[in-house]
C-alpha cells in the first residue's frame, strides 16, 4: 500500500510517500512494524497520541483495520484556517 507522510512526520521520515509491503492488520500494527524497521520511523512515531491517521483520505483511529486500504497517511493534528 501507499504510505504518505505530512508536515514534521514527513521531515523526520525523509520522504513524502513510499510503497510499503505489510501484513499488518491494523494501523497500530503497521506503526509497530515501521518503528522496528529504522530509527527514523521509531523517532517519527515515538508518540502516536501526537499523530493523526487517514485511510483512503478519511480520518480514522489507530485501531482501524487496513483490509482493502490503498492509501495510509500519517500527520500531526491539522493547523489550517
Amino acid at each position, binding site marked *: 500500500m501507499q504510505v504518505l507522510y*505530512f*508536515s514534521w512526520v514527513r521531515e523526520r521520515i525523509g520522504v513524502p510517500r513510499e510503497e510499503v509491503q505489510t501484513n499488518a492488520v491494523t494501523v497500530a500494527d503497521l506503526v509497530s512494524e515501521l518503528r522496528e524497521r529504522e530509527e527514523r520511523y521509531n523517532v517519527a512515531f515515538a508518540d502516536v497520541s501526537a499523530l493523526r491517521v*487517514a485511510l483512503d*483520505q478519511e480520518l480514522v483511529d489507530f485501531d482501524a483495520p487496513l483490509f482493502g486500504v490503498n492509501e495510509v497517511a500519517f500527520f*500531526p493534528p*491539522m*493547523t489550517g484556517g
Partner: protein
Amino acid sequence: MIRVQSMPFDSGGELNTFSSSVAGVGAIVSFTGVVRDVEGGLSNMIIEHYPGMTEKALEAIRSEAMQRWDLADILIVHRTGLLEAHESIMMVATASKHRKDAFEAAEFLMDYLKSRAPFWKKEITLDGADWVASKSEDEDALSRW
C-alpha cells in the same frame, strides 16, 4: 464554491463576487485569516496540504453546514505553498436570510476547517522555520457543534 490554490487571492474582491452571486439574500458574514506578525517582526508561511483529502474534507464541512443552517451559499478559499507576510491565508463567507445563521455557520466552518481539513502551517521568522502547533482549544471548539 471551494477553492484550494497557491495563488494569492483578494479577500475584498472575493467578498464582492460572493455577495453578487447571492444578491438579495440579506446577511453576509466573512472570516479572513491573515499571516500574522510574530514577536519582533513579520513572518512568512508555508502551507502544506494533502491533495485529494483536502478537497474531500472541505466539501464534507461545507455540506454539513448547508444542512444545519438556512444558507444561500458558502465560499471557502484556502491557500497552499509559500505565503508572504500579511497575505490572506484563507477565507470563508456565508450568506443567509438570517444574520444568526450566517454567523453560526461561519464559526462552524472555521472550527471544523481548523481541526479537520488536512493543512499544516509552517511559520518562517528570522529565528527559523517552525511547524505551528495545534491548540487544544481548537479541538475543544468542535464540541460546541
